[in-house]
């Protein structure tokens, strides 16, 4: 089937993907960079120092009024070590953008976006609980899933699950 001759469908996120990325990159040159992504996804990265500023723009002029998701990823052999991955949705178009915020430091710190999207509250608490990422300006940055007195941050890669690995699982795909 020839898909190129079809008119772009309403509600198809891929039609707006390129524009979304282009707009935010043009607004913050040198700060926001485009990232390789699967087809149909708009992904940009930004450093922690500029995250609050970019977030305010995305919420205001960008039109991304809805925070879908926010979570952490740990890359222990990389600087910055952590990513805060924030998925935002523009409900009117509809369009979606994913912002990857590189976070480093001891403890790793990033500005909180709870003032922009109040719904980020629990997501940031979860990222703090699981990765130890400190969100500056968060109204109540406490553990959310683990007990308050818990030591360590379970989703960090250096936190063991405490079970014996089965050997064949750890072969590389070429074996």
């Amino acid at each position, binding site marked *: 089937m020839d898909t190129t001759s079809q008119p772009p469908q309403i509600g198809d996120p891929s039609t707006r993907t390129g524009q979304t990325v282009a707009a935010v990159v043009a607004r913050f040159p040198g700060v926001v960079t485009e990232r390789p992504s699967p087809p149909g996804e708009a992904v940009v990265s930004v450093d922690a120092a500029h995250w609050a500023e970019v977030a305010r723009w995305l919420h205001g002029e960008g039109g991304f009024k809805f925070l879908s*998701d926010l979570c952490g*990823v740990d890359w222990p052999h990389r600087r910055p070590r952590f990513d805060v991955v924030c998925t935002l949705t523009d*409900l009117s178009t509809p369009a979606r953008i994913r912002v990857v915020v590189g976070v480093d430091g001891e403890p790793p710190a990033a500005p909180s976006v709870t003032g922009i999207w109040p719904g980020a509250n629990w*997501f940031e608490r979860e990222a703090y609980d699981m990765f130890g990422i400190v969100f500056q300006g968060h109204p109540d940055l406490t553990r959310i899933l683990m007990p308050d007195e818990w030591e360590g941050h379970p*989703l960090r890669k250096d936190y063991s699950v405490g079970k014996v690995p089965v050997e*064949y699982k750890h072969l590389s*795909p070429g074996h």
Partner: protein
Amino acid sequence: MPDETTDKRVLTEFEERSQGAFIEEDEPTDARMTINMGPQHPSTHGVLRLVLELEGEIVRDVRPVIGYLHTGMEKECEDCTWRQAVTIVTRMDYLAPFFNELVYSLATEKLLGIEIPPRGQAIRILMTELNRISSHLVWMATQGMDMGAVSMMTYGFRERELLIDFFEMTTGLRMNHNYIMPGGVWQDLPDGWRTAVEDFLSIFPERMGEYEELLTGNPIWRQRTQGVAVINQEQALALSASGPTLRACGLAWDIRKAFPYSGIEQYDFDIPTRTEGDVFARYAVRLDEMRQSMRIVRQVLDTLPEGDYKNMDPKIAPPPRAELTRSMEAVIHHFKLVTQGYAVPPGDAYVSVESPRGELGAYVVSNGETLPYRVHVRDPSFANLQSLPTMMCDTLVADTVAAIASVDPVLGGVDR
């Protein structure tokens, strides 16, 4: 005969003491009181704990405390192959297991860059839409029970049993099916599946009429739900609420329409909305959603294409059982897939589906190996629970239970 003097002395002492107590206690009688509700409370639907700040009968503040069911499922996924992780994610939101499997599979398939045959996609829609009905039935049953309509409890579970039987017939399990997997579905629909679904579709509209009779027109039900736990559209959006909670505030936002998945765009259905934003509106939206899901299921029955139920690429999908006795190649592929799994190209992807509770998202990261590097599930119950304090502020303490039930949180998904 009692000693008069002793009696008198006791009496005066008591009076003095109580007067003293009364004088000392000069704070008003409607002072704030902190009450703990749960986590072992039947109406909290699992292990949700609420810390309520009360002024007399009025709830002034609520703090939901979660994590009592946290079992580290996201961490556990990092220790499974891509295929095995389905068995973990299906256990998250245990009332909507097909949706968890679907969203995780879609995200993985996006990284793999593989296509799913039309029959596989249609089967996925069939299972998830039936799952939406069965999940809403549990919600109706429990909301009814929490508010005193105990017979609704038995009716809801009675009808759900019909669907559970069908799920068992198709997947082998009543819950946690492990049926939808990256590449398609585990196996084709079994003999007699069409009759089973037709039977359900012929029974259910009549049963829905019974629920309407029992609840919708019931003055007690209306008084306990209308104008209770109200949230407006602006608040719901700001707090990242989705699903029936958001649609009951008048916004026709549905992932199935906005970001269609698995071929859902080819079926006709409407997005039910209400504008009141109260418990009754959320009830009405869910009731209509069950009707819309029936519409979709009917269309799937009429248009189910023939063909493969999964992507037959032997590097992704295990070969059919029958081939294992005939083909050496099939045995090797099977062995490789079971022992080692398949490698997924490096990258990350976020996919969302419209689960019975709202936007269910999966964010997966691969570093090119046979185990997922990171699996994060954006559970709608987790996000929706954040709006509970807004809903319950300045309502009566008796409406607490109605408010919790109307958000329909599943703690397995909240805590993961």
